[in-house]
């Protein structure tokens, strides 16, 4: 049986609303249900995986997000791509957390074609 695949496109940065937390909760549910996950971090969402975040009043998003991606090394997989134009513009290309690949919209096109469903959280 082929595993189901979900691509989640994020466009908002962390700490401005609950969007990233909703994405993480969906990701945990997807892992439990055996659904393969693709994260495409686009625009301000490329800051989600920026290393060394140290918020004073919130859990560090990078760590939470990074844990999901690292757990995705096993089945079901969880891959993450950050848009290179977005990371370059924000100066975060070299500071993405472990497991996040720098890519582009062609990758998103491929994921969209491969996935059972693609959603945009923003």
């Amino acid at each position, binding site marked *: 049986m082929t595993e189901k695949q*979900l691509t989640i496109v994020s466009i908002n940065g962390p700490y401005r*609303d*609950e969007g990233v937390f*909703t994405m993480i*909760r969906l990701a*945990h*549910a997807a892992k439990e*249900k055996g*659904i393969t996950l693709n994260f495409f971090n686009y625009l301000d969402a490329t800051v989600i995986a920026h290393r060394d975040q140290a918020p004073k009043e919130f859990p560090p998003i990078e760590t939470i997000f990074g844990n999901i991606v690292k757990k995705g090394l096993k089945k079901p997989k969880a891959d993450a791509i950050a848009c290179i134009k977005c990371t370059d513009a924000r100066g975060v290309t070299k500071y993405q957390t472990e497991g996040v690949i720098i890519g582009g919209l062609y990758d998103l096109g491929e994921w969209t074609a491969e996935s*059972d469903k693609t959603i945009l959280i923003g």
Partner: protein
Amino acid sequence: MSGLLLVLSKDPYTTEIPDLVLDIGMDAKGKGNDVTLYLVEDGVTAARKTEFGNKLAAAHKKGIKIYADDKAVLSRSLENKLIGWVEIKEIGTLLDFIMDYDRVAWF
């Protein structure tokens, strides 16, 4: 007929997006589609017993199913303050809907 899942994450009193979402849902329902509205984050405030909540109740009477995310409801202490037809569900239900519906739009 196709299934349309509308996910609303915005409060109705800070933006016009919830009105737009409701219009889309009612229009799609009027054309014979199966429509579900799922409230997450600040979107759960749309189901309070207010003027907008009355709009949701009217939408429910037209056949639109309405769900609200449990954590969003609990964190805002809205358990007993929502209109009657809203079902409170955990995040796995939203994921199932996302995977099963023909179309999903997140606002």
